[in-house]
């Protein structure tokens, strides 16, 4: 393992390459969440469930009507936009009430989101049953060769999507007026509203956008994973590490991709050098250590 023979070198390079791809997949799961958490500082717990909703929309169109998965993306985008809107509307009521009683908003939001997650999960179960499903277009597993490495079209599509969206989001939130406005709103809500910004509306737009992106992620990831109505929570956990590692704010968006890569790499190295069964323990421990060292996330500096 230590000697750099051509075999070992290829071994490590292949791990790096696949960690990059898996990192891309993780980023895909994270895209919507990184937006909401990074910019709005809201831990969007139903993120996984919204992703699943997007997946099921695409699944139905693909399996019942034969629509190409990529063509279903606009519809899953819109569906999750609406779902996000509904969640946001009620959430406003939650924060309004809890603010008025001067109780920590964190706790109520957590509970509310758990309720939303449970509700979506069970509605999906009623509509689609619990049978695990996947989207399987004929070209899904065709291999794209990149040098000596291979990657399936499906995984590559996710990789490209996440890279692209993260870059676009980064540009929006650092370079455009809208993006800067939203960030200023988060920094200081009172000052921003004095300046004329409609706080609720801006936050709402970002939130539903995050949900809509989650839906698109779901459609794409359906070609890579198998989902059942309960997969949402698992997905959320997978990407929490990524979000925390990458940090908050605009740098967080940029950091998501790198964070995903690091998480994937750690998991792989853990599987190689430690008991494979402990991969979860190692990734969680890493997350915990990072949280303690960098309470505001990697990209955001220390507390």
């Amino acid at each position, binding site marked *: 393992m230590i000697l750099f023979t051509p075999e070992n070198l290829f071994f490590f390079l*292949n791990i790096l390459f696949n960690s990059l791809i898996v990192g891309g*997949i993780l980023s895909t799961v994270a895209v919507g969440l990184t937006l909401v958490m990074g910019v709005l500082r809201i831990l969007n717990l139903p993120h996984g469930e919204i992703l699943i909703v997007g997946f099921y929309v695409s699944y139905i169109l693909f399996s019942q009507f034969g629509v190409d998965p990529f063509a279903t993306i606009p519809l899953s985008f819109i569906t999750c936009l609406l779902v996000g809107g509904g969640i946001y509307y009620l959430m406003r009521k939650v924060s309004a009430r809890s603010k008025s009683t001067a109780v920590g908003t964190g706790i109520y939001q957590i509970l509310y989101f758990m309720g939303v997650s449970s509700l979506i999960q069970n509605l999906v179960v009623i509509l689609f049953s619990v049978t*695990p*499903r996947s989207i*399987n277009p004929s070209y899904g597993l065709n291999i794209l060769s990149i040098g000596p490495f*291979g990657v*399936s079209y499906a995984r590559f599509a996710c990789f490209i999507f996440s890279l692209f969206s993260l870059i676009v989001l980064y540009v929006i939130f650092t370079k455009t007026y809208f993006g800067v406005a939203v960030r200023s709103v988060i920094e200081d809500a009172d000052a921003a509203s004095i300046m004329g910004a409609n706080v609720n509306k801006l936050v709402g737009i970002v939130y539903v956008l995050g949900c809509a992106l989650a839906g698109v992620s779901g459609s794409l990831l359906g070609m890579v994973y198998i989902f059942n109505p309960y997969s949402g929570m698992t997905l959320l956990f997978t990407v929490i590490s990524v979000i925390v590692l990458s940090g908050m704010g605009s740098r967080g968006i940029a950091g998501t991709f790198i964070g995903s890569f690091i998480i*994937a790499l750690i998991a792989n190295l853990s599987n190689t050098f430690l008991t494979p069964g402990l991969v979860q323990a190692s990734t969680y421990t890493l997350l915990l250590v990072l949280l303690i060292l960098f309470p505001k996330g990697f990209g955001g500096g220390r507390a």
Partner: protein
Amino acid sequence: MNKKAITKLQAVVIGAIIVIAALAVSVYYIFTKPAEKTEIVFGSTCALSGAEIGISKPIWVGQKVAIDEINAKGGIYVPELGKRLPVRWIYYDDENDASKAALYYERLITVEKVDFVLSCFNDANLLAVISICEKYGYPIICTGAISPEIPKRGLKYAFDYFASAEHMPLVFIDFLDYIRKNVPQNIAPKTIAIMATNDDLKYCGRSAKEYAEKLGFEVVYYVEYADPGTDDFTPFIQEMKARNPDVIANMGHALDSVKLVRQLVEQGLSPKLWASSIGFYDPAFREALGVYANETYSSTGWGQVTTPTEKAAMDDIIARARQIYEPAGDDVLAPYTGVMILKEAIEAVGLDRDKVRDYIATHEFHFAWVGETVKFNEMQWYPVKSEAVGILINGEQKLVYPTAVAEVPIVYPMTPWNKRG
């Protein structure tokens, strides 16, 4: 803080309510009389919600098929009453949670006062439930646990009739041996890689390794990986590529099997033979992989059928199960049989639970859909052995071994991944 302290009146009211409630409960228990028997009541739980429902629901389905069949014929004959009584089945959702399962079983036994209990699913749940059943003297035929823990507990009222993790891979290794002896030496399988999840399926993996080595195969790679938790199989695939195994056997669940296959395809590792224990059964596996699911092997043949009549009886049960729950397969046979064993015992000795228990422990059962005589050994265990190996061909499960029951020819070596689709 205490703006809304309880007033005296409220305290009196609350106290009175509690006292009256306590009295009412005691009165109920002292004065209720048993009614005349008009039905036999069975009770059980199952995971009716949650992610494990895919593998646990077939247990419930098997039980339902059996009970529907019994009731269609008028019920179970009770000798001491001289007539048939219909079966009423009370079931709850244990959400795959052992403490809930235990609590529900206690409820079923002490509140609903069921006559008999049926099995739930999952090793952990059953381990908790059999303690409850032992306490109250309710015989239970466990049709949902693969680990040897249950018979090892040595409880008097617990029986185990289910696939055993340790027995699962044996016929598959025999099958590999058969191939080894019947193909040209230059392509014969000699090396095996085994990947098992680190839950109860690891006993399956270990058993496979031990038996394979006993038969002279070389297990070049063996890993117990975390599930859930493993998304990227790259390190494992890399290791296997370096050692070039003839056979890759995955004792895992459908989701990780799918991920594994997809990554095997991407990284270009095509063994000469590929097996996936649960992937073979789960329709999601076939749906997700399309052509790449073909030529997947697995141990199967839980019905232990050897004759066409037996196979017909088995197929009939499975067909009825499919009407209730489409993805059902031969995993409904064990719970179905569990109910039928109970039925036969009741019809022989009546509703006395101890007599039923003794009957089940000592009697030899013969069923039309099971090829062997069913008799529980001294540990009250009847490990349902897999007696055949199956293959997925064009999305269907077909038997290939032993030759006596083979429906399609053996495919060896496997069509490489890059030559498909």
